[in-house]
């Protein structure tokens, strides 16, 4: 389907926010799902770029994505202007399973893994699923921080930066109190961060859900390009289909 670019904003040196509107099954979006974007009519770039949905507004019929420029495809995407159209497929994949009502939730995002958690947090508030919500965001440094205020409107936000230039110096794990009796943890970020979080939470009774990333080809589950291993390493799951969100007990991080 073709969506109109209605806004594009530079958030950090290499991270962009892109707003889209047009015919899209907004109602069907599950937080944590992604869209697959065709780059420049697929002429040179034949693989679509999978980008997580950061926010969806069913009333305004718009959706927001946030992406980091990592190569020519995302660079092209960052050069889109209001009025341009994007050919997209979605929503794709399996998103976050929402927590039980009124449970104690912690959401942990790292870098470009932060945005998909926004739609989740928004839903937790709007659907009045829980008010007991802690948001932990990790960035490399102050210059790389984005969307902190946006999250702060929805709940208590703790920020860690590697160099301490914003928030607490250290890692997201330093801000995650394992004695706080969190019942659910939702996270998206670098694989190393997800591993550290799981180790950090070992021995406590918490349901952990993590959003994984991998190079994709088809994005719809047909090519088996983007697999991850089950926890016992006997099976593979498709990140684009069974994922990108998994219960962290199910997968080998």
């Amino acid at each position, binding site marked *: 389907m073709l969506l109109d670019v209605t806004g594009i904003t530079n958030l950090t040196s290499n991270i962009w926010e892109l707003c889209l509107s047009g015919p899209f099954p907004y109602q069907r979006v599950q937080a944590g799902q992604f869209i697959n974007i*065709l780059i420049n009519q*697929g*002429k*040179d*770039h*034949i*693989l*679509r770029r999978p980008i997580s949905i950061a926010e969806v507004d069913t009333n305004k019929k718009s959706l927001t994505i946030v992406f980091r420029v990592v190569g020519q*495809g995302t660079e092209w995407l960052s050069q889109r202007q209001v009025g341009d159209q994007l050919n997209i*497929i979605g929503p794709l994949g399996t998103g976050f399973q929402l927590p039980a009502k009124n449970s104690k939730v912690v959401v942990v995002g790292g870098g470009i893994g932060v945005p998909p958690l926004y739609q989740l947090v928004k839903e937790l508030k709007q659907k009045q699923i829980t008010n007991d919500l802690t948001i932990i965001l990790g960035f490399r440094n102050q210059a790389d921080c984005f969307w902190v205020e946006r999250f702060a409107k929805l709940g208590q936000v703790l920020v860690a930066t590697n160099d301490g230039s914003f928030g607490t110096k250290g890692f997201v794990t330093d801000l995650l109190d394992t004695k706080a009796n969190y019942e659910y943890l939702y996270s998206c970020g670098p694989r190393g961060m997800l591993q550290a979080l799981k180790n950090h939470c070992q021995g406590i009774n918490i349901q952990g859900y993590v959003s994984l990333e*991998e*190079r*994709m*080809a*088809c*994005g*719809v*589950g*047909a*090519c*088996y*390009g*983007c*697999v*991850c*291993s089950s926890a016992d390493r006997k*099976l*593979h799951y498709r990140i684009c*289909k069974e994922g990108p969100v998994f219960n962290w007990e199910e997968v080998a991080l």
Partner: protein
Amino acid sequence: MSNPNLAVELAGLKLKNPVMPASGCFGFGREYSNYYPLSQLGAVVVKATTLEPRLGNPTPRVTEVTAGMLNAIGLANPGVEKVITQELPWLAKQDVPIIVNVAGSTEREYCRVVEEISNSGYAQAIELNVSCPNVKLGGLTFGADPKVLANLIKKVKKVSAVPLFVKLSPNVTDIQDLAIAAEAAGADGLSLINTLIGMQIDIKTRKPVLANKIGGLSGPAIKPVAVRMVYQVAQVVKIPIIGMGGIYSGIDALEFIMAGASAVMVGTANFTNPMACPKIIKEIADFMAAEGIESLEEIRGCAL
């Protein structure tokens, strides 16, 4: 305007049109059935099936290159038993001929899978995968030497009740030798080309991008190579040829048909556009109508 007939016949296999998704690019059909009825296709060619389940290679398994992609999936599949019990029964209900791609690492393994698939009654044809560049054993071991290939085909033919298409690799010195050997050994048809072996290096990590280091190159980048090879093979065999390699449009498909292919397979294009196959079918029909072509037989091999 005339009403073009897109139907083709391949080794007794009647297809309503010459367009089918290529093995490995379409899973077992379920995912793309969310985009259009699979009955629109000439046939569906399912993912390579092996005797035992295979997890495949470590990730990254795919990466984009200019006008193409590299893959090193490594024949990930649930194994022939699950393919027969869990995948093919569903696909058989979609009103489209099924071609099962069979891979193996020994002659015995190929024969057992072909026999089981043939006996299952679900497959209208089998495509013998002797050209996968991404596995250590089998694959290209059987597809690079005319004698070894001929021996395998002879054995497999004995246990198959359905037509056997042999998928040829472009990673050989002389594809004509392989094609001639395959025909002489009893292949009912040939499909070509599989991917070309390639590599991409990440200059930041200073290492190959793919965990497997090498992968198969597909997409528009390989089309001229594929057209040339179909043209060369069409000169030396009489059995039908299914052409593939970077087909994205009706124009691309017609090039292969004019080079001598009776039908075409569409691979990577499905990833770029899930509606690629129906689009290509329509574009072929439009061309035939515009040029007053009533049957594809009129133009098959016309460039030779």
